[in-house]
């Protein structure tokens, strides 16, 4: 293990350990935060309870749909904007200002339009995540070196081959960082939406536990969300690292 890995592990273990001690000794009351070990126990119990399955599958399937929509849609839109300069000129001010919008303020409106249920959540999360993918796709395609495109012409590649064999692999590092953002933003979009206005889903369960002073269940679910998002990101990150190591970046 490298020095950096040691430091990282030490900080993580130290922080969790300190929290554990602070909670167990009563320095932090259980009404505020429960000990990390208690969170794990609560998580195991929560996952065994009957009603949790439906909440999990609702949230995760909403995330999966939003993620797929924003990655595929973001890529296609980014590609089109990169390809058609006047469209790009028309839309780029919107894209630049996009993340200044407090998306969640529009959530009630989405419920009015789409009704209660998964649809407004998916729409919210997709709106939130897709633009990150659009921007990353455009940045990646912008940075494909011109000499590689010339090389494509020398090899007399068809347009599809040029895109598939040159533009996409050349833009891959940017596409991957867009993908990572889209994954994270989809989770945030769905879970935060459930927090605000929903009758089911993990976000709602966390809010519900909070309202009922059910700290063990609340922290168990927070831990669960954290674990899932981290795992997902680690998988993409590992793939990205492998790719980048080859490229020497």
């Amino acid at each position, binding site marked *: 293990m490298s020095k950096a890995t040691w430091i990282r592990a030490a900080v993580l273990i130290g922080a969790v350990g300190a929290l554990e001690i602070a909670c167990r000794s009563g320095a932090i009351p259980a009404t505020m935060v429960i000990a990390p070990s208690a969170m794990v126990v609560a998580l195991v119990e929560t996952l065994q309870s009957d009603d949790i399955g439906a909440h999990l599958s609702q949230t995760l399937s909403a995330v999966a749909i939003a993620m797929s929509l924003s990655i595929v849609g973001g890529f296609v839109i980014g590609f089109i904007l990169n390809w058609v300069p006047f469209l790009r000129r028309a839309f780029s001010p919107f894209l630049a200002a996009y993340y200044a919008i407090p998306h969640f303020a529009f959530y009630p409106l989405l419920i009015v339009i789409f009704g209660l249920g998964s649809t407004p959540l998916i729409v919210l999360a997709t709106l939130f995540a897709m633009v990150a993918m659009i921007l990353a796709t455009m940045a990646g395609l912008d940075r494909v070196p011109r000499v590689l495109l010339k090389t494509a012409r020398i090899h007399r590649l068809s347009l599809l081959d040029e895109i598939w064999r040159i533009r996409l692999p*050349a833009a891959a590092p940017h596409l991957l960082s867009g993908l990572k953002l889209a994954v994270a933003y989809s989770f945030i979009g769905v879970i935060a939406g459930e927090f605000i206005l929903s009758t089911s889903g993990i976000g709602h369960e966390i809010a519900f536990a909070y309202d009922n002073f059910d700290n063990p269940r609340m922290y168990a679910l927070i831990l669960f969300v954290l674990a899932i998002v981290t795992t997902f990101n680690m998988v993409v990150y590992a793939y990205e690292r492998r790719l980048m190591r080859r490229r020497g970046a």
Partner: protein
Amino acid sequence: MKTGATRLATVATSAQPDVHARLEGVTRIYPPRAGHGEVHALGPISLDLRAGEFFSVVGPSGCGKSTLLDVLAGLAVPSAGTVEFEGKPVRGEVPDGVGVVFQEDASFPWLTVEDNVSFGLRRSGVDAAETKRRVDFAIGFMGLRDFRRAYPSQLSGGMRQRVCIARTLVLQPRLILLDEPFGALDQQTRLLMGDELLRLWRETSATVLLITHALDEANLLSDRIGVMSARPGRFIEIVETGWPRERDSRLAERPDFGAVTARLWSYLRAESMQALGQGSMAR
């Protein structure tokens, strides 16, 4: 490559025995864009490339050397005039049999050396055995045998340029166009790469056109050297070196070597000063 000689023979017996590629009255004018009016980059320029010769182009910076190469390769369409390769017109598409190597690193960072080299043969209709034979040959020829599975990021600039040359080589080009391929390399590497280029030229019998800004590199490598004027570039002189076909960088020791370089510089000096003067508007 044994097949080189036979291929060349068929070229030489076609209607125009000696001319492999021909530019006639070619100009290239870039349309006006924001900030400046139209730019007359090149010509009118005419050139007959003889089959199997090593021809270099030198000229002041911004004189349209690269434009000349792009037009000849079919990467750019001339504003006026005609381009022919092996008797057929070239217009907006790179003809079969033409290979191009650029100054910038054009290796694909996501592919191994081997996959980079075989890139042009995949989906080309060349069968697997022949592909393997050609790739092995090109990798061996360019001294990349120990780096087959390496990625370009693990190689030096000179090695990456070898990868690009090998990638061109597997397509068995009959005309190789090189746009300052060693421009980003250090002097020693340049000299060695020059020797390898000469060896490649001799063994493949291809016609070579090299764009360079280094006068002694042009002198050392070439049978003929076209000296271009400041923009819009045309040939102000074509110098025949008269060097033997078997030659390498030791040619520089010959007493008459310096005389040719000096001659090139005498043509170029005034043009270069003029180019410096218009530097502010150079493309």
